[in-house]
């Protein structure tokens, strides 16, 4: 739908927060880093330099699977300007578990496990010399058989990626490439299917996609012979980088100070490390600062894409729309290491539905592809694609309205979730009601168009969080948080601190502190930042307010608990009400040095009340039967935000998730040749949505407060990518008149499906 067709929505499906009226929270002021970002001043990963800096380049395997017989670095080292070459021998030994996996991924040891796997790295006086030198590193390989497809990797006779990688969860008799197994459920699915009037079982596949952040990984490392180091990098979590790099280099964590640069997108893909330990190893070897920046093709070949999937889902439904049983098998390959989110895929698959009989099985499978990394609600979008497609088909065949059927079976407060626990307060029904009431749902479709709907679910997450809020003499505030700002979170933090302190938003400066300045902070992932850092900000501000009230109480000579905080002032209350004039924050802080010292509020905890989140999306798609090209003509996102702190940035998260989902559904895929090499490692061939591909994306913010946050916040970043794959597949299937089972629904796949249906 075009911009000028939009009319303002009235009577929004918004529920009131829990009775609290906010002065600043819920407004959308300009972001604190706005001017830096529009003037080019903001410093991202690749934007810094250091005196005496060297540049690095990485040597990568051209083979999908190969034994490394010999690495000859002599020609590279002989090139003028080359200062050091590192290989696996320059990293720590004796690592186990996930740290070993990460090291093996960062720098191959005896075997190259995928096309693009790092095998050596060079540092030189210029980037051009480093690149030239990398080409002079001679690696002798013995090419091994490879496998890149998930079903092929599980089949008898498939090349074994690594013996002994499976854990105890894997039942006997499976291929060694199956490394984790998940099974959960309840009731009796067979009895459930027997109760149904219609049972549909279908097979679905999705290709791997990349997070596609526009900023390639970049870092600047400095490490001396004393083992002390500094690292600047673009990351979603610099304490995690500190922990991993310290382990991989064999140094203690506190020896390494990590500063997070501005980050040019992450979406989960910058939650781990790829190049930072390499830059540190080169810096340690040369005693000079080393800058390492990935090229785009390195990003595609060697950083985390998603898992690809092969899935079977079976659902039974009565004529009235009641779901009697749901069963799913989800096979995910996550590259040459364990960790594909098969368990989360299985656990998310049926979460929107209150069904008595459930069974979900997940297989985590290794193959000769790069180690998968998180991408916005890892696993959930694929699961929803399979489940919501089957439900759509059941609705079609039984002549039922897809939103009514979802409402009839929807999970609500008190429902036992498909993955175990009972849901607390959740907003799925509210999103469905709002979608049903939205003008989009009843708008007429043109010939050749189809409409699809889908629900989506994500857990959300809390995690270790540490925040510090220091007051200045003039009553303004400096808030330090440890979660990199990946989408405007500094604005939300400043709003929450300003709300509690009763000072203007502009008077709060928010800084992403380095690892030496705060306690451990978990990565910016799991949609946790506005929830957990927000909660910690509110509590740190309340801690500062208690101290401010204490200073006022001491001044007035009354008990501390007889002072309350109102509109940025200490005010006497209870029996002392009205005895003294309100004392503004700036008067207290002006004299704080003489009344007990600096006033700083803290909060450190691992909050566990991240409320789960649901969304419902409506999509209209138009399919050209001659070319197979799909146009998304109208898109509406309805999602529960709990409480929108900065509504404009909440809308931005909704729109961004939907747009990424459109890319995943229609275009984006990792294409491997028979040689196991990635064939489309540039943006021209791996085509993410461009402006002319998309319509405006309408949003409805539903607010069903999360009881686990003081203001009711639920994370919003990830759930927005859960429904699009299915919603678009349902719309495309309706428009094309044939069910699509495989993503992406690129023009050749749609033409194939149309051809099959015509009996071609």
């Amino acid at each position, binding site marked *: 739908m*075009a*911009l*000028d067709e939009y009319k303002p929505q009235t009577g929004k499906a918004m529920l009131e927060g829990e009775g609290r009226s906010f002065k600043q929270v819920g407004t*959308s002021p*300009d*972001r604190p*880093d*706005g*001017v*830096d*970002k*529009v*003037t*080019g*001043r903001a*410093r*991202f990963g*690749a*934007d810094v330099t250091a005196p005496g800096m060297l540049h690095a380049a990485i040597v990568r395997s051209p083979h999908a699977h190969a034994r490394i017989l010999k690495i000859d670095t002599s020609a590279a080292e002989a090139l003028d300007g080359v200062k050091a070459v590192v290989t696996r021998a320059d990293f720590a030994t004796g690592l186990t578990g996930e740290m070993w996996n990460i090291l093996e991924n960062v720098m191959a040891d005896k075997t190259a496990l995928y096309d693009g796997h790092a095998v050596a790295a060079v540092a030189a006086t210029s*980037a*051009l010399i480093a690149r030239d030198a990398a080409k002079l590193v001679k690696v002798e390989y013995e090419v091994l058989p490879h496998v890149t497809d998930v079903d092929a990797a599980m089949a008898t006779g498939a090349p074994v990626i690594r013996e002994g990688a499976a854990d105890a969860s894997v039942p006997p008799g499976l291929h060694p490439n199956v490394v984790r197994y998940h099974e959960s459920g309840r009731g009796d699915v067979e009895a459930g299917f027997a109760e149904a009037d219609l049972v549909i079982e279908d097979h679905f596949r999705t290709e791997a996609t990349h*997070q*596609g*952040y*526009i*900023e*390639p990984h970049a870092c600047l490392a400095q490490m001396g012979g004393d083992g002390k180091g500094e690292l600047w990098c673009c990351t979603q979590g610099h304490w995690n980088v500190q922990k991993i790099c310290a382990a991989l280099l064999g140094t203690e964590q506190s020896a390494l100070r990590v500063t997070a640069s*501005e*980050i*040019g*997108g*992450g*979406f989960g893909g910058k939650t781990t490390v790829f190049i930072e330990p390499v830059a540190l190893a080169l810096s340690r070897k040369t005693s000079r600062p080393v800058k390492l*920046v990935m*090229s*785009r093709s390195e990003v595609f070949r060697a950083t985390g894409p998603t898992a690809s999937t092969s899935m079977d889902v079976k659902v039974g439904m009565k004529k009235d729309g009641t779901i009697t049983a749901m069963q799913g098998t989800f096979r995910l390959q996550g590259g040459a290491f364990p960790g594909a989110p098969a368990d989360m895929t299985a656990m998310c698959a049926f979460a929107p539905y209150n069904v008595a009989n459930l069974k979900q099985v997940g297989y985590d499978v290794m193959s000769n592809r790069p180690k998968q990394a998180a991408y916005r609600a890892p696993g959930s979008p694929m699961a929803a694609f399979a489940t919501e497609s089957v439900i759509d088909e059941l609705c079609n065949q039984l002549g039922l309205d897809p939103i009514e059927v979802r409402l009839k079976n929807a999970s609500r407060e008190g429902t036992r979730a498909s993955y175990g626990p009972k849901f607390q307060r959740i907003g799925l029904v509210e999103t469905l009601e709002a979608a049903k009431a939205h003008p989009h749902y009843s708008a007429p479709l043109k010939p050749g168009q189809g409409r699809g709907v889908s629900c989506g679910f994500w857990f959300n997450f809390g995690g270790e969080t540490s925040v510090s809020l220091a007051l200045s003499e003039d009553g303004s505030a400096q808030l330090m948080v440890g979660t990199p700002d*990946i*989408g*405007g979170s500094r604005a939300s933090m400043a709003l929450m601190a300003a709300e509690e302190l009763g000072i203007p938003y502009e008077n709060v400066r928010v800084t992403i502190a380095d690892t030496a300045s705060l306690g451990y902070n978990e990565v910016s992932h799991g949609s946790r930042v506005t929830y957990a850092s927000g909660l910690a900000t509110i509590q740190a501000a309340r801690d500062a307010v208690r101290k401010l009230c204490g200073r006022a109480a001491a001044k007035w000579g009354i008990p501390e608990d007889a002072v309350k905080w109102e509109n940025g002032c200490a005010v006497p209350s209870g029996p002392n009400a009205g005895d003294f004039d309100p004392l503004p924050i700036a008067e207290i802080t002006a004299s704080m040095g003489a009344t007990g010292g600096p006033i700083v509020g803290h909060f450190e905890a691992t909050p566990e009340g991240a409320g789960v989140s649901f969304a419902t999306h409506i999509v209209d798609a138009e399919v050209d039967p001659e070319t197979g090209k799909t146009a998304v003509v109208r898109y509406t996102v309805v999602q529960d935000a709990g409480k929108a702190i900065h509504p*404009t*940035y909440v*809308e*931005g998260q909704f*729109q*961004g998730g*939907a*747009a*990424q989902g459109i890319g995943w559904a229609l275009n984006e895929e990792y294409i491997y040749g028979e040689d196991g090499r990635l064939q489309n490692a*540039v*943006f*021209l061939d791996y085509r*993410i*949505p*461009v*402006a*002319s*591909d*998309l319509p*405006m*994306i309408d949003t409805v913010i539903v607010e069903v407060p999360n009881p686990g946050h003081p203001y009711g916040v639920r994370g919003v970043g990830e759930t927005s990518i859960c429904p699009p794959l299915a919603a678009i597949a349902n719309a495309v299937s309706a428009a094309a008149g044939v069910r699509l089972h495989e993503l992406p629904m690129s023009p050749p796949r749609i033409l194939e499906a149309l051809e099959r249906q015509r009996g071609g």
Partner: protein
Amino acid sequence: MSKIHVTTTVNGDAVEFLCDARETLLDVLRDRLNLTGAKEGCGTGDCGACSVTLDGRLVCSCLVLGAEAEGREIATVEGMANGEELHPLQQKFIEYAALQCGICTPGILVATKALLERNPDPTETEVRYWLAGNLCRCTGYDKIIRAVMDTAADMREAS
């Protein structure tokens, strides 16, 4: 290998530099002139994060050699604001939350400024196709398109 001496103008300032024949204009701007506003998202002309103008023409600076800057006039995002006064597009991008991470923002601002100089009254479709060479992964473009359309309307009114 001897370097090439280049004399050029960047954001109105006379500039000289030495560069390798293989260095791109983007490399020169970022590494030799410390103008890091233009970003390298791909190095192959597909993402537009390195957009600058060369004698008024919108180009991907990763597809231009540094040596080609000789005698030309280059404009980058760093030259958009007039001192403290932001260009109306810069102001509107902040106001509309038309950026999330902000890595594509410099390129998109340079590209849209070039558009509005040619076409002060673009349709939504014209804006979408003009910006089809500037990738944004965060926003879904919605708020960017709105910010551009609204800036264009404001600038027409003001002129």
